[in-house]
C-alpha cells in the first residue's frame, strides 16, 4: 500500500485514456506562434481551446508595456502586498478596473481562482449562507469549502429553484449570498441573470457574478453579462480574471460595498500569497485599454463564435443551448470522444476534451473556445475537420451534406 494507492481508480482511468492516444491533460507545445496557432509534435496546429477571447497575448502594445516595466521594476514582487507593499501598477490597475466597471473599489488577486477563493471564503462567514449554481466552476466550490458558511446549490440556471432554496432559509439568521457565472465555461450558456437579480431583490440576498468568461465578451462595453442584461445595479460583487480576454494572469473583484477595503486585511488568499509581477500588471493595464479602444475585437469574437456554432449545428452535431465564444459538441460515448479528440489533434486542431463527471451534461464534450484573432478560414478549417472526423467515426451520418455558411 502506497500513499498514492487511494488514487487507484483515477490512475486506471488516466492510464486507459493515455493508451488511446495523446494525453489531453499534458500536451507539450514546441512553439506558440500566435494567439491562434502553435506547433505540436512538429505540426502547425490551430488553437481552438485556449480562452484567448480577444487574442491579446501577442498584442504589440501589451508586450511593449510589459517589457518597459519589466526592465524598470524587475521580475517580481517577491511577496504579498501586505508584507512587501504595492507597486504603483497594482493600485493603477485596481483604479482602472473600478472605473471600467463603474464601481468604488477593486481588489486584484494573483489568479482568477484565488479571486473566487478569496472573496467567497471571506465575505461569507460562519452563520452565513452561500447559494451557488450547481454547475459552478471549481474555484467557486473551493472558495465555498475554504470558508465557514453553509453552502447550498441550486439547479443550474433555474431561478425558481434558487428562490425555493432562499425561501427555505427565510427564518435562518445570517447573510445569504447568491453566486452565479456570467458565461458557463463548459457549454457557453449564460445565466438568466435578470430573473436571478429579481430573486435577489425579493429575498434580500447579495449577488456575486463571476464574469471570467464574459468580460470583454458580453455587454456593449464588454463589462459582461450583467451589463448585457441591464442588472449591474443588482450585482454586489463582480469577480473576474485576466487570463482570458486580457491575455495575462490574475484575478479581481470589484464592488460598491462600503468598507470593501477591509477585505485586504481579512482575506487570506489575498494576504498570504505573492502579488502579481509588475510586468504582468503592466500588460493587463494595456490589455484593458485595448479592449476598450477596440470594440471591433468583441464583434469579431462574437461573429467567430456564431460561425463555429452554426457550422457545427448545420453538420448535425449536438451543441450547447446558445451561440457564444465557447462552443461545445456533445459526443455520446467516452471512447468515441477520446478518438475524436485525438483525430482532430492529429489533423492539426487543438481543443479541450472534457470527460464526465466533470461535464454538466453527463456526456463527454469536445469544447472549443474561439478568439477574435481567428480568421474565417481557420474557423472553416475547424468545421471541415469536425465534419471529416465525425463521418469517419460514425458520429455523423455519411450522406448528410453540410450546410456551410460560406466558403
Amino acid at each position: 500500500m502506497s500513499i498514492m494507492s487511494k488514487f487507484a481508480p483515477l490512475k486506471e482511468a488516466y492510464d486507459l485514456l493515455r493508451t488511446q492516444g495523446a494525453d489531453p491533460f499534458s500536451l507539450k507545445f514546441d512553439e506558440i506562434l500566435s494567439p491562434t496557432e502553435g506547433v505540436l509534435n512538429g505540426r502547425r496546429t490551430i488553437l481552438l481551446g485556449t480562452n484567448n477571447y480577444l487574442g491579446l497575448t501577442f498584442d504589440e502594445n501589451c508586450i511593449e508595456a510589459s517589457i518597459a516595466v519589466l526592465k524598470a521594476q524587475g521580475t517580481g514582487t517577491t511577496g504579498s502586498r501586505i508584507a512587501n507593499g504595492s507597486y504603483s501598477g497594482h493600485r493603477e490597475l485596481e483604479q482602472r478596473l473600478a472605473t471600467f466597471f463603474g464601481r468604488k473599489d477593486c481588489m486584484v488577486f494573483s489568479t482568477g481562482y484565488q479571486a473566487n477563493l478569496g472573496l467567497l471564503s471571506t465575505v461569507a462567514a460562519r452563520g452565513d449562507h452561500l447559494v451557488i449554481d450547481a454547475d459552478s466552476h471549481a474555484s467557486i466550490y473551493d472558495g465555498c469549502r475554504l470558508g465557514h458558511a453553509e453552502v447550498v446549490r441550486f439547479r443550474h440556471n433555474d431561478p425558481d429553484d434558487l428562490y425555493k432554496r432562499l425561501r427555505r432559509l427565510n427564518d435562518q439568521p445570517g447573510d445569504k449570498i447568491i453566486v452565479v457565472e456570467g458565461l458557463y465555461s463548459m457549454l457557453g450558456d449564460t445565466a438568466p441573470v435578470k430573473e436571478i437579480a429579481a430573486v435577489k431583490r425579493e429575498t434580500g440576498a447579495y449577488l456575486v457574478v463571476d464574469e471570467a468568461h464574459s468580460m470583454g465578451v458580453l455587454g456593449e462595453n464588454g463589462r459582461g453579462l450583467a451589463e448585457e442584461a441591464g442588472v449591474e445595479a443588482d450585482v454586489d460583487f463582480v469577480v473576474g480574471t485576466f487570463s482570458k480576454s486580457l491575455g495575462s494572469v490574475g484575478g479581481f473583484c470589484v464592488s460598491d460595498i462600503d468598507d470593501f477595503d477591509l477585505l485586504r486585511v481579512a482575506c487570506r488568499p489575498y494576504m498570504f500569497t505573492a502579488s502579481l509581477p509588475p510586468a504582468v500588471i503592466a500588460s493587463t493595464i494595456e490589455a484593458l485599454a485595448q479592449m476598450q479602444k477596440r470594440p471591433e475585437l468583441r464583434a469579431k469574437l462574437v461573429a467567430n463564435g456564431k460561425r463555429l456554432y452554426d457550422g457545427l449545428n448545420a453538420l448535425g452535431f449536438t451543441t450547447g443551448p446558445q451561440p457564444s465564444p465557447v462552443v461545445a459538441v456533445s459526443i455520446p460515448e467516452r471512447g468515441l470522444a477520446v478518438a475524436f479528440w485525438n483525430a482532430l489533434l492529429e489533423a492539426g486542431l487543438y481543443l479541450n476534451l472534457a470527460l464526465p463527471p466533470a461535464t454538466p451534461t453527463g456526456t463527454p464534450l469536445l469544447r472549443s473556445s474561439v478568439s477574435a484573432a481567428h480568421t474565417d478560414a481557420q474557423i472553416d478549417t475547424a468545421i471541415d475537420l469536425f465534419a471529416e472526423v465525425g463521418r469517419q467515426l460514425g458520429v455523423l451520418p455519411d450522406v448528410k451534406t453540410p450546410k456551410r455558411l460560406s466558403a
Partner: protein
Amino acid sequence: METVDQEVRSRISAALQEVVGRPVAVSDETDIVNDLGLDSLAVMNFVMALEDEYDISMPLDRMAEVQTVGDLVRTIEELRGNLRK
C-alpha cells in the same frame, strides 16, 4: 419516528432505482457511490429530487458526510426536524 424513517427509506429506495435504471436491493448499509456505481452528477440529481420531495436543502458539508443510505435517511430526518423548529 420509526415509521417516518421507514417512509423516507422507501422514498430513497424508489429514487435510487430511478437513477440506477433497474431494481436494486437497498439497505441502510448500501454505499451510494461504491455499491450502486453512481457518479457525482447522478448523486447530485438524485439528492436534488429528494430535496424537492421533502422541501429541504442539503448543505454540501452535510452531503459530504453521507456515504450510505442509512446516513442519508438520518440526514434528511435531521434537516426536516430543523425546519420544523
